[in-house]
């Protein structure tokens, strides 16, 4: 199967691998630093002794975070938003993308424009805020799901993928008697697993990282999402504007980098666990055996 690789190709591969290794190493080192600091004793961190290996290992920083009830309810809230919002978003995005991928669609230009226009012209924070309140979504978790349900950007991405699917597949399906619905659900969606996985990942991460909307639309502390609570923990004590409070009166525990970095780990690790689940959709050769058009 493989013909002999030429010299230039070997060199090319060496270069590629070197770059990848260097890049990954720098990232690994950076995160080792983060983890090490989060696990180290406060004084060692202060003295700058911690680089990649924790010193005076203790879980104090994590304890501070985990012991707050607010963190757990925040976790639950965020999970709810993800579980409720992601399928809804993907579904609706596909609903928008499929018709737009039909080249002969009547009204296509109009609909596309209507969609694309929203990518650049949004009403702004205050009108949205007033709208959410009028719709009685204010101070509920749905306020963090519904307003962003369809992102024109995602629609375009998926539409592009739908357009790339060889028309021969569709033609042979129609000859077999498929209507639009079956074409969408039985052919297009299964074939679009990579892009759907990508968009799902974006959507999930978007919900996970969402901070501004949660701040604006949620007042009930029991409904705060993860980012809000974590940022609060991290920034407590270093924010006082106007009031002259000495560091003494804010337990200096909370000022330490340990807590800040522990919060990063707590935020990042769960999301990284999502990716392996989606990776199986990034599989090559999905259209193997398709009829060449």
């Amino acid at each position, binding site marked *: 199967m493989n013909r002999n690789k030429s010299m230039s190709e070997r060199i090319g591969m060496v270069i590629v691998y070197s770059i990848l290794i260097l890049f990954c190493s720098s990232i690994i080192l950076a995160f080792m630093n983060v983890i090490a600091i989060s696990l180290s004793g406060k*004084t060692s961190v202060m003295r700058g002794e911690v680089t990649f290996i924790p010193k005076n290992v203790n879980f104090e920083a994590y304890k501070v975070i985990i012991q707050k009830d607010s963190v757990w309810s925040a976790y639950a809230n965020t999970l709810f938003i993800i579980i409720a919002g992601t399928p809804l978003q993907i579904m*609706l995005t596909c609903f928008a993308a499929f018709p737009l991928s039909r080249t002969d669609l009547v009204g296509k230009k109009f609909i596309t424009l209507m969609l694309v226009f929203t990518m650049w012209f949004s009403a702004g924070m205050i009108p949205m805020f007033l709208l959410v309140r009028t719709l*009685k979504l*204010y*101070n*509920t978790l749905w306020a963090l799901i519904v307003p962003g349900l369809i992102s024109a950007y995602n629609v375009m991405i998926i539409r592009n993928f739908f357009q790339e699917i060889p028309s021969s597949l569709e033609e042979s399906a129609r000859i077999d008697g498929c209507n639009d619905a079956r074409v969408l659900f039985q052919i297009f969606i299964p074939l679009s697993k990579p892009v759907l996985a990508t968009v799902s990942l974006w959507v999930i991460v978007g919900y996970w990282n969402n901070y501004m909307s949660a701040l604006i639309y949620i007042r*009930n502390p029991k409904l705060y999402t993860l980012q809000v609570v974590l940022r609060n923990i991290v920034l407590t004590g270093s924010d006082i504007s106007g009031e002259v409070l000495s560091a003494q009166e804010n337990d200096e525990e909370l000022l330490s980098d340990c807590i800040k970095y522990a919060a990063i780990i707590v935020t990042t690790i769960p999301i990284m666990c999502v990716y392996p689940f989606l990776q199986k959709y990034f599989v090559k050769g999905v259209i193997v055996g398709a009829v060449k058009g």
Partner: protein
Amino acid sequence: MKKFIALSLVAILMVCVIPGCSVNQSSSSDSAIAGSTDTSTGGTLSDSEAALPFKETLKITQAEVWRPENDTEVLTYNVLQERLNIEIEYIQIPVASADEQYAMILASGDLPDVVNFPGSIYPDWLKYEAIIPLDDLMNEYAPDFISKLSNEDYIFLKSSDGKIYTVPRHNGDMPNVVGLSSLCVRQDWLDKFSLEMPLTLDDWEDVLTAFKNDDPNGNGVNDEIPFGGSLTPIWDAYGLGQLYVRNNDNTLALKYKDKYYIEAVRKLADWYDKSLIDREYITRNKNNTEMQAITYNGICGSMYMTGTHTTDVTNALRVAGIEDALYVSSKLIEGPRGRNVRGRPSVGLSCAISSKANEPERIMQYLNYPFTEEGIELFNYGVEGETFDVVGGKKILKQELVDGGWNTIRSYGINKVNGTSYYWLSDMFLQMTFKGKTVDTMDEISALAYHAYTDKVLGEAAYKDLPSSLNQVQAYIDYDGASLVTELEDMTNQVIMGLKTVNDLEKLIDDVYENGFKQIEKEANELWTILTK
């Protein structure tokens, strides 16, 4: 089949969008503002209505800054509501995003009754008259509060229109410098070179030069930072610690135009050049962790930090092996304007009453409560038997609370950083800081902090911050004073670092003054006259 799915999804979406769909109970804050009828039309309450506890329950909403260690189900708040017969619904605003949240509250027009600002009053709230002036209400309904105010306090309470809008967190009888920063120095390094504690600028220059050149930490590497962190103490020595300099005739003069400003800049540039001050001071981050780090690893000779820093650093260095490490507070730098250190203002800002409140009179009574005998006890010590005991006629906080630290005691609602107005007692502060020990019973290293706090010299040298209302005069807004200040500060820093010349700085100062600050200074002086009347 697929059509069915599609249609039902549409239905679900419509149901979700249409009002009524909420997974969790939304709080009833939207509808419930004041529950009781407004019986006072002219602004005066009858005697029976004014008596505490209120006969008819007062229901109000209070927007309050929320920190993770806070809750509103706290002891003091519950007791307060019981004693006065009030029902308070707290709206918690996360501190990290208070600015945006308050902007949203204002933007929605749905204002709570009581508003607790995290810092100075947001100019928007004043501009759009979202909060009401309290002067008349105070006189009628807040006698205890007024009795605690000194003349100086009024300067800080009044806004740029000369009226008072908030009932503050009052720092009570806290001595001027307790809890604040002082200039600390490594006594053991001084001893090593047989140097006296420096006093004047020249003394300091000699000491810092020795720190730099003679390798006090003995590791053979020239890594010492003789003067780390903030340059404030040096500016203070010239009397330039604030935007305006207070002249003897009680007028204000812009610091950049002061006769000592350029001299100070030259001195600092000189010291930077000789590496006597931290060459990376501009990026050493502002929230203290990096600054502390350089003292903790023993390369910093002196720094402007809080009093307890002396204890902490000494301990940490001794633990790390430097046995005779000793970090003490100095006597400040004496410059052309003598010795100066920033003192603690006596009032912070706390609660304002919004213009949408229905019962400002009774609310004022509620805000007055923390200044009564009962109220002071409640918010400083808590409840007898639960959080403190009376021992020999003095109120002593329970040991578990004191050992738990500030966060623990705040979880009971005592000395909350933000929230209801409050009058602070220094006794409580000392109990907490020194964990119940007195100066006789604490060890030598802890006593370092004690001395840092109570040192008489510091007390005499303390000056009060200028009120923030000076930065809210119309000219400041029109000419965008904040960015002018930023420009000047940036240029100053660049001159100190040797990247620009003093000429550049002088030119910029003149330019900025002609094109804005002259007017700002004039209006600030006008306001100052009003405030200090």
